[in-house]
């Protein structure tokens, strides 16, 4: 296992418990992130569909609006566009931003509101007024569409980013963190096993040595008994608790 690494821990039972806890944590995190990525993906797909629909609608709306501009120019002889451009003071339609929360991601949404009255009410009074009203309506519709599209597109970009990040994290946990922890746990377990085996072997060796030592001693004793140095009873150490009669020491 030299190519893939693991955490550098001292293999002990404590380390093993800690690693097991981390593994659990990583797995829970992985599940949660996967759920988040799925929720975001669902929202993403729905936004994509809405964007496609709105863009198609946009094409038609803009076409109608430009055509109504041509109509207005036809019936209003004279260049009314210049007067309109010159008398613009401030925006009539303004946007407020609101925030939407999807699975923890903050998405802005734009909402339009009319600020101030229609300063061009009387334009085209002499001629072309009806076409001008239609023109205003068409372009107002186009602006509404544009605002909707703006909301959808910002959400789309933000979601795209977040989904990429979340997926990256999910994959990281799945393919890097969890295997690393698992390898560490396996390493610890294997080390512990080996230590146990060593202990066992050591124990066995010590026992064997003791047995040998005792066997040697026994042999020596048997020899000494044979040589008459020792009787056979010295094996037993005197027992104070026995009722053997001790001769009293009388100092007469």
């Amino acid at each position, binding site marked *: 296992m030299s190519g893939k690494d693991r955490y550098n821990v001292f293999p002990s039972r404590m380390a093993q418990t800690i690693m097991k806890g981390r593994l659990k944590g990583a797995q829970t995190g992985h599940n949660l992130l996967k759920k988040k990525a799925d929720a975001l993906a669902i929202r993403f797909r729905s936004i994509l569909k809405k964007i496609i629909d709105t863009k198609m609608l946009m094409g038609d709306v803009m*076409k109608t609006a*430009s*055509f109504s501009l*041509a*109509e207005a*120019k*036809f*019936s209003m*002889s*004279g*260049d009314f566009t*210049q*007067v309109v451009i*010159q*008398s*613009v*003071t401030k925006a009539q339609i303004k946007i407020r931003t609101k925030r939407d929360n999807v699975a923890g991601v903050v998405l802005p949404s734009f909402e339009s509101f009319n600020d101030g009255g229609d300063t061009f*009410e*009387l*334009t*085209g*009074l*002499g*001629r*072309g*007024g*009806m*076409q001008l*009203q239609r023109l205003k309506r068409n372009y107002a519709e186009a602006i509404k569409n544009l605002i909707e599209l703006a909301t959808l597109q910002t959400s789309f970009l933000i979601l795209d980013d977040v989904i990429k990040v979340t997926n990256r994290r999910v994959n990281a946990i799945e393919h890097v963190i969890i295997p690393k922890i698992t390898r560490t746990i396996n390493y610890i377990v294997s080390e512990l096993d080996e230590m146990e085996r060593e202990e066992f072997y050591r124990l066995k060796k010590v026992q064997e040595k003791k047995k040998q030592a005792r066997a040697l001693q026994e042999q020596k004793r048997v020899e000494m008994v044979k040589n008459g140095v020792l009787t056979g009873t010295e094996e037993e150490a005197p027992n104070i608790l026995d009722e053997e009669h001790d001769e009293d020491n009388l100092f007469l």
Partner: protein
Amino acid sequence: MKEDLVFNLDHGYAEGLCRGFRSGILKSTDYHNLVQCETLEDLRLHLQSTDYGNFLSNESNPLTVNVIDDRLREKIVQEFQHLRNISYEPLSTFLDYITYAYMIDNIVLLITGTLHQRAIGDLLPRCHPLGSFEQLGAITVADTPAQLYTAVLVDTPLAPYFIDCISEHDLDELNVEIIRSTLYKAYLEDFYNFCKSLGGVTAEVMCEILAFEADRRAFMITINSFDTGLTQDDRAKLYPTCGHLHPDGLQELRRTDNYEGVRDVASRYPQYKVLFDGSGTNTGDKTIEDRFFEHEVKLNMNAFLRQFHFGIFYAYLKLKEQENRNIIWIAECISQKHRARIDNYIPIF
């Protein structure tokens, strides 16, 4: 009768020139060809075979509708100014009167610009060339509309229209559209009186045309002001009085509040009843504006049927403008690929 004898002394050349220009106005076959075009390049090609010739030949690709619009306007300005240059009194005064309408538009544009602190230098190129007057360059000195009036407008031929109806104070406050309508009303009445004073065939032809213009304006102002904040009295101040509707029709119009009311007023005058009958407010119907345009074209065409009068100059200018609008309409339909309503131009011949 005597005028007919001596008319050609002073104005024969001009009339001849005007009639020559008039015969170059596009016919229905030309419009047929234009409607069949697929691109603006085809349009340019077809226009080359008409009186327009190579007026678009120096334009770089890609050709846009705005470029065509500018060139068309240049051409008509050139023709008109040539006519003006070769004319004698009283034709020159008459032609000047025609330009006052464009001057009104330019002045309204400049007033709007000063109201919103725009640089006057930006606005000057956007003025209509037929409506330029000498003081136009001096306009840069003024900052507010009131200043504009005292410094510049008092010396223009339009000054009397201002005096009649608008005080300096009003200039700053009133909506520019109301200023425009008030000026136009004064102009129309003045022009009507001038034509009447010329007498003869000119008076007959022009007064008919101007009366229709006055009535048309009254109708349109009424219809267009229904949903706005314009009160009935304010509206009544904008009705020109030189038309057939004066005075009872105008009183009636002042009191109406919806389209049906306007229709009722119109039904009392046979020539307008016909126009309103053929129109409607549903989509797909001809609107009353279209009918008004058609009637105007008819009156202008009829002007050419009589000789030795000034009406043909006015009629020629209006017809040429209508033709320009038609060409631009067709060009827009082609370039936006919206051919459903391409036949909505007003045919002239």
